[in-house]
Structures are given as structure tokens and as C-alpha cells.
């Protein structure tokens, strides 16, 4: 059974329809990539799934339960974590305060501290800088913090929006390595939105190509990488 299933989703901004009836599914343990150009509706799709934007029609099913109408803040304790576009760390708070806010919905202090240790192991830089204001971190470090913060809620599904945006190539590689580790070592299912299609397809199991609010293509990530139309439009070859 799919961990996440999106059925005929439609989203409007006023009278403008941003998402025109898309359907896709994410199976447990997978890395799924949503790729597409600017304005294709990738971020809107993610924000609708995590309850930041209301949908007009369609259904979002998570672990067999219809979550379409559940407010965003309740989805965190159900196991969905969202790393937003532009990272959106709490700039005026320290790294550690940000991480604790990620665990806001957790009750067990001991388990939370264990998760913190695990995150420090995965992101040693966050441990070094735990008392620093997060607004003073570099872009790559902020991305790590945003991911660490999301992992503090101990999610089953992590939704990542443009994790490589604005990062230097070294950081891009590091971030994608970490995404793979989160998926393989920690068993977290990943739904990834990326403009860097090449990178995204290289770590994804399957992918969906969004074009102006519709799914234009879908399939095995390897197959899509070799698809001529994808190559031409998104891989700049």
C-alpha cells in the first residue's frame, strides 16, 4: 500500500488554477522526485499535501487516511515533515532552538535527545554551531539545519522542496548524499521537488514530470533520465 496517494488534486490561487488534477503515489521506502520548470506547480503540490494551502478538489491519502482537510500542524505528529523552499529556518533563534522546535510535537524527552544525537552525527556542523544564531549560518548549513529540524519530528515521510537551491556544487553533492542516507539508513520515505533534475533523478526510484499543473510524464527515474524529451527539456543535453 502506498504511504501517500494523491488523487485528482486541484488547487487554485484565486481564479488561477495552479494544479489541474494531478495524481501520483509514493510507496514506503521510496525516493520520489517531482521535477519540472519554474511555475509548473511543484511547490504548490507539496504545500497542499502538508496543509499549508487548501485544495479545491481531489484527495490526499496518507497511510490509508484521508488528510485532505486536516490542518497542517496536525500532520507533523502523524509522521509527515516538510522542509520548505528557501529553508525558512528561524533566523533569530539558535541552531539548537530550531532543532528543538522541530521536535515540538514529541512528548518523550529521552527519545527526543536520542534523535538529537543522531542528527548531530549526521550533521556534525550543526553540533559545532548549536549555540549560533541560525541566521548567521551559510546557505548550505541552513539547508542542513532545515533538514535536521524536520528529522527531529521523527517522520515517516519527509517532503523536501528544492534542497539544492542556491547552494554551491560541493554542498549540493553533500545534501544529496545525506538525502540518500536518510532514506536508506533511517528508512524515511522521501518526496523530493527539484529544479536540478539530473541530481534528483540520479537518487530517485521513480519520478513525475510536472508541466503547468499537470503530470506530463512519469516512470522509473533511470528510464526518465534516458528519455529524449526529458533530456531535451530538463537535463540540458
Amino acid at each position: 500500500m502506498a504511504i501517500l496517494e494523491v488523487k485528482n488534486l486541484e488547487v487554485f490561487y484565486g481564479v488561477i488554477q495552479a494544479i489541474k488534477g494531478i495524481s501520483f503515489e509514493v510507496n514506503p521506502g521510496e525516493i520520489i522526485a517531482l521535477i519540472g520548470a519554474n511555475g509548473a506547480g511543484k511547490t504548490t503540490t507539496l504545500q497542499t499535501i502538508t496543509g499549508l494551502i487548501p485544495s479545491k478538489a481531489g484527495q490526499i491519502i496518507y497511510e490509508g487516511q484521508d488528510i485532505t482537510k486536516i490542518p497542517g500542524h496536525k500532520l507533523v505528529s502523524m509522521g509527515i515533515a516538510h522542509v520548505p523552499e528557501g529553508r525558512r529556518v528561524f533566523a533569530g533563534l539558535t541552531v539548537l532552538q530550531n532543532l528543538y522546535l522541530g521536535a515540538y510535537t514529541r512528548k518523550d524527552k529521552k527519545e527526543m535527545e536520542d534523535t538529537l544525537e543522531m542528527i548531530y552525527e549526521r550533521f556534525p556542523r550543526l553540533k559545532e554551531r548549536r549555540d549560533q544564531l541560525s541566521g548567521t549560518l551559510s546557505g548550505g548549513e541552513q539547508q542542513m539545519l532545515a533538514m535536521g529540524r524536520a528529522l527531529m519530528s521523527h517522520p515517516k515521510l519527509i517532503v523536501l522542496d528544492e534542497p539544492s537551491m542556491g547552494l554551491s556544487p560541493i554542498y549540493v553533492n553533500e545534501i544529496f548524499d545525506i538525502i540518500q542516507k536518510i532514506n536508506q539508513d533511517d528508512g524515511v520515505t522521501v518526496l523530493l521537488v527539484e529544479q536540478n533534475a539530473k541530481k534528483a533523478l540520479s537518487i530517485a526510484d521513480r519520478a513525475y514530470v510536472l508541466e503547468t499543473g499537470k503530470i506530463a510524464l512519469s516512470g522509473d527515474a533511470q528510464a526518465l533520465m534516458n528519455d529524449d524529451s526529458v533530456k531535451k527539456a530538463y537535463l540540458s543535453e
Partner: protein
Amino acid sequence: MSFLSYLINGISLGSIYAIIALGYTMVYGIARMLNFAHGDIIMVGGFVIFTCVSTMGFPPLVGVLVAVIACTVLGVMIERVAYKPLRGASSLAVLITAIGVSYLLQNAALLIFGSNARQFTSVVNVPSLKLAGGALSISGVTMVTILTCIIIMAGLMTFINKTKIGQAMLAVSEDTGAATLMGIDVNRTIAVTFAIGSALAAIAGALLCSTYPSLTPYTGSMPGIKAFVAAVFGGIGSIPGALIGGILLGVIENLSKAYISSQLSDAIVFAVLIVVLLVRPTGIMGKKITEKV
């Protein structure tokens, strides 16, 4: 010696402004709105204490406690009924609603208590302190007001830095969307903020009416506006800013009353605000966060 006495009284008046300004600044920081009905909550607090103590004969501290509870409930109710439906509406619509709520409270009080000023019995029964062989006298209300302000400040800082809900408030004030993604219920956080602000307004009402013992339906309006000025002065959204802005405003007001003109003191206060905002548009403690993108 008289300078010292003016200064201390100024700090005391400023402490009241600071306590009121906290309500403005916290609500602004978290809900991004100016709650112009905040000053009138002070007046409601004053009338609740007046009714409890002078009409029903309860001890003053019980009156203050009842006022704190009543104002907390009122503040949360106002937020629920008047402001929550406007979440996402233009800030102008929210501002006009707040002014409407302010008039509603004033006129409701007018209807119940009439326009005649009531003699408010001070809730503070502390003897005044005589220093320097009687040359300097500090009244009990003055001491209690300054002390209360310090306790509230320390308590609030501890609450925000040490509790989960306090951290949630910081998160919401920085980024509502990101706070939602942490699992924080933004609406509940805003309600808690209104509750705290209104409880503080009740305490400010008790101190204000004990210092200036005349109570009318318009009692809260001028101190409310001055506290708003204090909040902007200190940097709206900043809690230490509310304290510094409030105290400075009280001191400036009292010193200009003493040495320049008692009629011009308000004009001087507002002139200082204009100058500060021209030089530092974000206020004294205004945040200038440099964000890396």
C-alpha cells in the same frame, strides 16, 4: 533631591507604560496586528477592581485577581470573535476592527457605569519610604509599580525562553508558515498571546488607577496610545524594547512636566517619538536580521 523624585516617579509611570506596551508588542510580534482595543482592556480591569472592592467589599488583592481573570477571558474572546475571522484579511481591515472594538468597550462601560469619574481606592497598602532625612519620599504605589514591572519582565523572559509554548511564540513571530510545519498550532499560540497581554493589561489597570485614582470609560485610552508609542519607540515586536521604550517615555513625560510645561508634556513625548523614528525607523531595539538566502 526633587530631580531624583521626578525621575523615580517617571520610572514608575514608565513601568506602567511598559507593562501595557508588552501587550501591544507581543500581539504585534505574533499576530502582526495592532490591537487598538488593548488600552480599553486596562479600563475594563479598572472597573472590575472598582466593582469588586468598592461596591462588593472584597479585599483589593481579590479584586486584582478577578480583574486578571476577567480581562484574560475578555481578551481571548475578542480575538476569537473579532480578529480570528479576519486572519488573512488586509491589515487595514483588522486595524479598523480593532478601533471598533475599542469604541465598543468604551461605550459598553459608559452604558454600565455612566460618564462620571469614579474614585478608585488604591489596591496598594504599602507605606511610603522616606530617604535622606525626609527630603526624598517614595510612595508605596511607586515602589510596588516598579517592582511589579521587574517581576513581570523576568517572568515573561523566563516563560518565553524556557517553555515550549514560549518557544512556539518566538517561532510564530518569525515565520507563521514554518511554525505550522513544526506542528505548532498558530491559532492557539495567538490566543495564548492575547491571554497574556490582557492579563498584563489588568495588572497595568490596577497600578494605573492606584497612581491616578480617577476612573472613567476613557481611562485606558490615553495610556493605551502612549504605551503604543512606547512599543514603537523601543522597537515594536521586541520585549526588551517595550521595557526600555516604556521607561524612557515615562521619564521624558515626567521630567518635561516638571521642568518645561505640564501642558506641553504630551506634545514633547510625541515629538521625541517622531525624532527617534526619523533616526531609527525600527525603534531602539528594532530587529535588523540579516538573512542569508
